[in-house]
């Protein structure tokens, strides 16, 4: 998609980035000690920390990824909102206060608080680094996606800009500036998402999202033997048909212009429906709807084909309330855009066809995760759903960059209160994601090349000002989250590994320098990964990070707190098994097979989310190894 760049967008973007950098300069002067760098001196107010928690948590995955997933797959995207929020219950009721009591700078400190074990230090630092990097990838991918419409720069430039700014922030000021950046960003994100939702409800539902919305061509067709297609229109000439997964795609010329259409039968009428398509020729040239990208023949999509209000079919609903909005979509009919890829001679063709979907199917699970027998759900489909919901529920309280925020407040009571502020802010935001996602789905706000841009492009349909602010906030979202992740990663390398595991003698100042150098290294690595993973939905990628965190870290945390027989070796082996099994399953999953250019159906493990296997494996390992290594090093019940 080619976007018009607005001066407004550039100005607001520069203002937000300038604000973030200004804060970093200000706090850099105050950060002199290791406790200041890693834990903001434990002096942050619980309310500020609570909103900063929300800022940390509402990453690119929440704002860009979930809204995009809802825009393309309806309620299935909202499952992420439910699971992400439910995970905070584990953090509040089981983890927040004990962890605050046990730790110093990092999650490894808490795990190792009663053992002083080198095994734990090494395992926890590796796990922190891996989980943070898994979480960093989607943030960087989201940054690249955002920069394209915002500044008109290519994807990799977005990744480079975010990486460079964040390396600067973290390498100058650490946790204090990260906290205040997250506080401002978290608050702005919730406020402007509310404003965007009010716009959506006030706009209501319309058959044609805007005056400029593309009018899709439809040609009457005659079909013999299922795939033998002809047309009566003398301006058209059929070139060839292609059957892909029972869909019949037709290449034809109309008035000399080549296009791909989809054969559709509805109400006993057979027609050819216009599609969006992209062709990559053998020499690498990309054509969008038959023309170079610069000719802007590619357009945004997403609309309703039928609106039912009070049992009557209407063209538009007018302003609606929040419940009426959901009810009206459920009673109506949505045109989604589904993707298929195939070869046409030497060319590789990707098409996005109109997929008319009943509103009732949009508003319940099933479009992305097949669950019912009638939809052909297999055992693995159901296991994938179970695995996702398990990983989301158990992943939150195992994310190192979230856990370190418990060390920035002065007391256990403050840790608890800040968690509750976070739950309220995040819960409210996640309810809004359903409106923003569905709003994108029906407002002509979908860039079929990137589901991640749905929410910012929805804002654009309401004016360039709102788009600029929302995009700049989304960019700050990425900046803030990446900062938190890099602080966590640098803590794992400099504090857990170099200082505690290798026991390199360092002054307090040298520890801060080591942390900053580690931050620079992790930042550069994440830039490279962000460029490599371009095009993937960021919420899906974060779901994988949750699965790795839930497998590697959560059994260790919970058993340390609630099982007296837990041993140091039990914790260390559980972390290692959790990391290896979860990453192993991901590497051999259908999604990664697609990324490798192989056939997803041939994946060695037909499971996209590893949690349902790797979490129990880590638990079993912890119990068995702990029972086998019972000596004097078993811990007390730390919950007391």
């Amino acid at each position: 998609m080619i976007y018009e760049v607005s001066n407004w967008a550039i100005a607001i973007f520069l203002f937000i980035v300038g604000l973030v950098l200004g804060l970093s300069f200000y706090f850099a002067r105050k950060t002199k000690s290791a406790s200041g760098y890693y834990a903001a001196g434990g002096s942050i107010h619980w309310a500020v920390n609570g909103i900063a928690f929300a800022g940390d948590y509402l990453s690119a995955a929440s704002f860009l990824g979930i809204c995009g997933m809802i825009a393309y797959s309806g309620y299935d995207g909202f499952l992420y909102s439910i699971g992400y929020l439910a995970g905070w219950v584990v953090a509040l009721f089981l983890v927040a206060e004990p962890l605050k009591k046990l730790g110093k700078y990092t999650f490894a400190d808490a795990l190792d608080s009663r053992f002083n074990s080198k095994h734990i230090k090494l395992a926890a630092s590796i796990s922190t680094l891996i989980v943070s990097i898994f979480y960093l990838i989607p943030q960087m991918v989201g940054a690249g996606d955002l920069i394209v419409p915002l500044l008109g720069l290519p994807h990799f430039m977005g990744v480079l800009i975010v990486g460079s700014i964040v390396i600067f922030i973290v390498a100058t000021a650490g946790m204090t500036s990260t906290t205040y950046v997250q506080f401002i960003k978290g608050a702005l994100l919730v406020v402007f998402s509310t404003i965007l939702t009010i716009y959506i409800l006030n706009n209501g539902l319309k058959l044609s999202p805007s005056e400029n919305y593309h009018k899709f061509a439809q040609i009457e067709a005659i079909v013999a033997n299922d795939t033998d297609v002809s047309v009566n229109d003398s301006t058209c000439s059929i070139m060839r048909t292609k059957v892909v997964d029972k869909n019949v795609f037709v290449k034809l010329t109309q008035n000399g212009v080549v296009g791909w259409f989809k054969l559709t039968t509805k109400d006993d009428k057979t027609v050819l429906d216009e599609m969006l398509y992209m062709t990559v020729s053998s020499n690498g040239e990309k054509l969008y709807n038959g023309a170079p990208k610069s000719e802007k023949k590619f357009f945004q999509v997403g609309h309703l084909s039928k609106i039912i209000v009070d049992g009557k079919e209407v063209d538009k609903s007018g302003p609606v309330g929040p419940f009426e909005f959901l009810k009206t979509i459920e009673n109506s009919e949505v045109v989604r855009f589904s993707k298929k890829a195939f070869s046409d001679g030497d060319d590789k063709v990707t098409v996005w066809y109109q997929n008319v979907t009943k509103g009732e199917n949009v508003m319940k699970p099933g479009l992305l995760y097949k669950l019912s027998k009638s939809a052909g759900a297999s055992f693995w489909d159901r296991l994938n759903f179970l695995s996702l919901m398990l990983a989301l529920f158990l992943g939150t309280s195992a994310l190192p960059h979230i856990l370190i925020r418990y060390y920035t407040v002065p007391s256990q009571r403050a840790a608890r209160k800040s968690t509750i502020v976070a739950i309220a802010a995040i819960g409210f935001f996640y309810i809004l994601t359903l409106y923003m996602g569905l709003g994108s789905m029906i407002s002509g706000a979908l860039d079929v090349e990137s589901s991640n841009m749905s929410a910012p492009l929805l804002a654009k349909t309401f004016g360039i000002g709102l788009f600029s602010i929302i995009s700049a906030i989304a960019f700050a979202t990425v900046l803030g989250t990446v900062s938190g992740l890099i602080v966590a990663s640098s803590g794992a390398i400099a504090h857990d590994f170099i200082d505690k595991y290798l026991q390199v003698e360092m002054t307090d100042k040298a520890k801060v320098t080591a942390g900053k150098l580690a931050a620079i290294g992790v930042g550069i690595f994440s830039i490279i990964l962000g460029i490599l993973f371009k095009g993937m939905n960021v919420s899906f990628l974060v779901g994988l990070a949750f699965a790795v965190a839930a497998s590697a870290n959560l059994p260790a945390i919970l058993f340390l707190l609630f099982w007296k027989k837990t041993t140091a070796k039990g914790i260390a082996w559980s972390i290692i098994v959790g990391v290896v099994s979860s990453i192993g399953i991901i590497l051999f999953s259908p999604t990664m097979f697609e990324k490798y250019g192989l056939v997803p159906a041939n994946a060695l493990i037909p499971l996209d989310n590893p949690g349902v296997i790797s979490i129990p494996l880590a638990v079993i390992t912890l119990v068995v190894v702990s029972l086998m290594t019972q000596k004097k090093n078993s811990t007390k019940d730390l919950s007391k």
Partner: protein
Amino acid sequence: MLHEPVVEIGTDKAAARKAKLGVKMFIAYTVIYAGFVFIGLFQPESMGLKILGGQNLAIIYGFGLILLAIIMGFIYNYACTRLENKLNKN
């Protein structure tokens, strides 16, 4: 040297009772969350049933889980604060 917190944390006599309360509330929420997951797994068609104000079960249950987490958070904080004030006074 072990890993003491950045700031000094005093003895909390309410810790054990707060932990027990936390575990009970966690189990209660987990059961309700598991109910949502199991309906999705074994009765997915039920998610489309309209149950309240024209909204289907998926919407009511999904919103309900989010709101319940917020409400339980406030209740937990209220109960913990009372326990702390009562047990740490002496």
